[in-house]
């Protein structure tokens, strides 16, 4: 059914992603079933089977092949989508790096889920963290509307001539994938204007035969990797332009992060994904009591928006970084370690603490969010935290 006017609907996160992909003039979809992204590809296969979407839907025999199919299809000039989670992303790992290093545009939805073992299907960001350094652009949604909107932005950013990189749209397992939330979709017409059929910069063509995926030896390898570094940083630079164009058709403006009263806050809590919403509600309550707390939810994790984040945090007196992932044997969670490095090299000497929470989908409630904000405030008042890393709620 063609979507014309902007009307509010109720929809699950997975279905919202599928709807965005359908509206994005996608040509090839390849995926393998894994909870909790499966609904995305189920809906997409329905769209294709019912003739609502003119695309090739390929269910691969593994995630490794699914991503490989996507690489081949994108090199052939198609607009390509895949989605996965957890073990599936881990199985794709090798090709994740090939995709970005071969500069192959595509979009992948990642329903962030814990990695074995123990087997667990619930929310964690530990699945995408091994792909942190791959050169992919990694975007994080805090709610269903964002998951939908970021999918369009992801395609546009991915295919931008100065970027030419794959983009992931991360949404929290079950909390977003399976939650029904209100969504205001854009019209099919606006979607087509925003994302006309893909015009590849280069593709497989017998009339202009190119060799893709060569071996590069030490004499050139570093220069090719430097190209990737430049492209990844360029993605950060063109992102506001792409997001701005999307704002013009949708009325919804995206930035490197969501922030709630962080500008003048004494204590700030930084987080990825849906927990931003919980923290925001908690912060509002504390603000009503006159407590100067703020919350930041990072939308763009890669490239890391250092400049903008430093600008935002320059007046903060303390910071808690919340990680839904951990670097075992390391200094803490991956976001925490990165933020520590960022603060240090920008001369911001504020106390920082890491709260590791919600692993394997453990619930993080509103009262807990309030408690974390209060710890942050306490750190701001005292000018220090008593510990570097706290595993929130663990029975230690």
């Amino acid at each position: 059914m063609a979507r014309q006017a902007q009307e509010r609907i109720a929809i699950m996160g997975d279905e919202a992603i599928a709807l965005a992909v359908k509206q994005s003039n996608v040509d090839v979809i390849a995926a393998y079933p894994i909870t909790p992204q499966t609904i995305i590809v189920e809906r997409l296969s329905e769209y294709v089977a019912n003739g609502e979407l003119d695309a090739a839907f390929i269910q691969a025999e593994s995630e490794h092949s699914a991503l490989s199919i996507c690489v081949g299809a994108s090199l052939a000039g198609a607009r390509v989508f895949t989605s996965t989670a957890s073990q599936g992303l881990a199985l794709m790992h090798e090709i994740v790096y090939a995709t970005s290093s071969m500069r192959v545009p595509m979009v992948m939805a990642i329903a962030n889920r814990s990695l074995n073992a123990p087997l667990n299907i619930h929310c964690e960001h530990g699945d995408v963290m091994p792909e942190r350094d791959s050169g992919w652009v990694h975007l994080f949604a805090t709610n269903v509307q964002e998951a939908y909107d970021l999918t369009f932005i992801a395609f546009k950013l991915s295919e931008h001539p100065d970027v030419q990189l794959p983009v992931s749209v991360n949404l929290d397992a079950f909390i977003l994938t399976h939650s029904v939330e209100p969504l205001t979709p854009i019209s099919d017409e606006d979607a087509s204007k925003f994302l006309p059929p893909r015009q590849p910069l280069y593709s497989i063509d017998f009339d202009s035969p190119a060799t893709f995926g060569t071996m590069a030896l030490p004499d050139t390898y570093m220069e090719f990797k430097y190209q990737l570094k430049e492209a990844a940083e360029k993605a950060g630079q063109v992102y506001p332009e792409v997001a701005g164009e999307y704002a013009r058709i949708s009325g919804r403006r995206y930035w490197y992060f969501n922030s709630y009263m962080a500008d003048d806050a004494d204590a700030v809590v930084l987080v990825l994904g849906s927990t931003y919403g919980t923290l925001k509600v908690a912060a509002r309550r504390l603000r009503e009591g006159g407590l100067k707390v703020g919350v930041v939810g990072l939308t763009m994790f890669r490239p890391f928006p250092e400049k903008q984040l430093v600008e935002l945090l320059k007046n903060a007196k303390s910071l808690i970084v919340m990680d839904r992932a951990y670097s075992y044997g390391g200094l803490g969670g991956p976001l925490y370690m990165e933020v520590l490095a960022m603060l240090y090299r920008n001369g911001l000497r504020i106390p920082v603490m890491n709260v590791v929470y919600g692993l394997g989908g453990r619930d993080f409630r509103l009262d807990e969010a309030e408690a974390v904000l209060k710890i942050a405030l306490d750190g701001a008042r005292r000018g220090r935290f008593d510990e570097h890393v706290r595993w929130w709620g663990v029975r230690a």
Partner: protein
Amino acid sequence: MSAKKIVEPVIKGQFTYKDLPIAAMIPVPATSLEYKTGVWRTRQPKIDYGKCIKCLLCWVFCPDAAIKRLEDDSVNVDYEYCKGCGVCETVCPVKAISMEEV
């Protein structure tokens, strides 16, 4: 873009990352023609045209496309690329090809 334009900056080490094609892709065909494998050779084929029956088997079996098939189906050796394997000598049904020391 020519093969030389792709190959020469790398050989000379005169390039920056901006001069290289995106993602190590090679945008033109057969740049390998700039790589002369003939220098590998320690023996080389010599064709006795008095014996050659133009059967083309040496051309068919050469792993390096170093036996050239001419318009009249006679053949000659492209010494720029011939690695001197001697397959042509072995497959010649009339012993018109012999391998000689370089």
